[in-house]
């Protein structure tokens, strides 16, 4: 079939809400954009295990420890589905991991911030997972079918994580003075980086327009960010805490919250590798991979030997 015809069929499917399956023809740029986005999402899940993993051994009760372990395990699972979804586009997991380790592929910058207190486990659940959900609910309707299916499954677990995070903060907010201070401090540190999770403002976003046309994305960065602010500005009242933004104000006209200017210099700095933990996170992943090389080799060698034995028998 000629290219023009294939493109027409593809666009017809997009326009008519027919999902694109791995074997369908798709423009190279669509394939590449999906690989970039899905692998970035997978890497975010895996790198995202590190800041929370920092508190497993110090969790303050056995119940909280169990919940945290299960949560991080879920994130590893999300990483797996997402790597598999990206593999349907013709890239291997090894290639994606190499791209992460070489710095070619990105992951969400939020995980380059440190987890300094137990309250950060709450703030990550409530704000970081909260922001992720806003984005991921949209992605359940993304046009590439394996990604969309993965998102449906992931969203269910993420909303559970967000409730758990809120619950951690809620208990702290009702606790001792020190716990309340810990709670407010974590909110102060995580609020602005969470807003940055939605990416650059629409006029600066290189990928938004094409992604919207292909229905990979269905809402712009700024629309999603506003949705998040409106949700959190209400929930923070339940905690009796405040968001660190003097310009945050309900706007009757727009029926949403106005909020202050985001520090985009900080955003770009972290993206470029200068966040507080960029080097540490990447080094931790590289080290795990390198230290595990002999284990993976041994597993392969054993599997090969078993196969030969079975053949001989």
């Amino acid at each position, binding site marked *: 079939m000629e290219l023009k015809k294939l493109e027409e069929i593809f666009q017809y499917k997009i326009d008519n809400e027919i999902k694109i399956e791995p074997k369908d023809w798709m423009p190279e740029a669509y394939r590449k954009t999906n690989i970039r986005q899905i692998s970035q999402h997978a890497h975010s899940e895996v790198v995202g295990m590190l800041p929370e993993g920092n508190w497993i*051994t110090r969790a303050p009760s056995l119940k909280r420890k169990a919940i945290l372990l299960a949560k991080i395990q879920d994130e590893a699972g999300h990483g797996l589905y997402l790597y598999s979804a990206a593999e349907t586009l013709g890239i291997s997991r090894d290639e994606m991991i190499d791209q992460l380790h070489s710095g070619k592929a990105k992951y969400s910058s939020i995980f380059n911030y440190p987890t300094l207190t137990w309250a950060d486990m709450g703030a990550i659940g409530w704000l970081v997972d909260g922001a992720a959900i806003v984005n991921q609910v949209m992605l359940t309707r993304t046009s590439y079918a394996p990604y969309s299916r993965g998102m449906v499954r992931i969203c269910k677990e993420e909303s559970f994580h967000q409730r758990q995070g809120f619950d951690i903060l809620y208990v702290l907010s009702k606790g001792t003075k020190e716990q309340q201070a810990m709670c407010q401090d974590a909110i102060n540190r995580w609020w602005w980086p969470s807003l940055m999770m939605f990416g650059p403002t629409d006029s600066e976003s290189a990928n938004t327009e094409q992604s919207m046309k292909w229905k990979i994305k269905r809402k712009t960065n700024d629309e999603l960010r506003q949705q998040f602010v409106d949700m959190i500005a209400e929930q923070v009242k339940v905690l009796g805490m405040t968001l660190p933004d003097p310009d945050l104000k309900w706007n009757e006209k727009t029926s949403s919250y106005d909020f202050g200017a985001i520090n985009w210099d900080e955003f770009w700095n972290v993206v470029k590798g200068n966040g507080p933990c960029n080097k540490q996170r990447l080094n931790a992943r590289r080290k*795990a991979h390198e230290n595990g090389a*002999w*284990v993976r080799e041994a597993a392969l060698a*054993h599997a090969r030997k078993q196969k030969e034995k079975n053949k001989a028998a």
Partner: protein
Amino acid sequence: MASTTTVSKEDKINYLLYIADTALILSHRNSEWCGHAPVLEQDIALTNIALDLLGQARNFYQYAAELIGNNATEDSLAYLRLEHEYKNLLLAEQPNEDWAYTVLRQFYISTFLFYLYQQLQQNEDEQVAAIAAKSIKEVAYHVRWSGEWVIRLGDGTKESNQRMQQALDFLKDYTGEVFIAANYEQAMQIDMATIQKKWEEKVAAVLNEAMLSFSTNNFSHTGGKTGKHTEHLGYILTEMQYLQRTYPNATW
């Protein structure tokens, strides 16, 4: 509750703490791998085992707390006891070192727990029997998972075989303690000789398949069961108990 005429309350509490502490400390060691394992699937598997062990520890602590009374809870037992009050096997607190040490330590302890729970399922104390019956399903998987890894590494490459052999040589000094019963353990009337025999058979079979040589060691470090630990436990507890110690009486 079934009659406990043969076991004093104190012995039973100590015994419950011994199993709970062993499960918790091993869970702690495993959880140190979370996010750092050789491959994502195995990160998930080992975290899963850490979670299972944590669940078993909590069940035993909760029952111990009930017997102790005085507002004891699973958390007061885990977070507010000192090193010398912990009764876990020394084997459980040994550092992760590498994947070989980790899977071998797991295999040794899981195999022991499997044959132990087999007996405890029949225990006259219904609560102990119920916890054992629930846990044995999980432990059966842990034995299989860790045993397969011991075989894989023993048989895999020259390097993995050497690393496995190093782990064997180091950890064998800690396996004997498993079968030397503390006073409170003797009171529980467990047939330790049978557990030891089955454990040795299972370990020998797996190591044989893994092409590793296993020499039983007549010497063994002991003391964990009665609160005399290696230098490692202090660090584990310092980390684990940090928040509870820093903010006494806070709710989390």
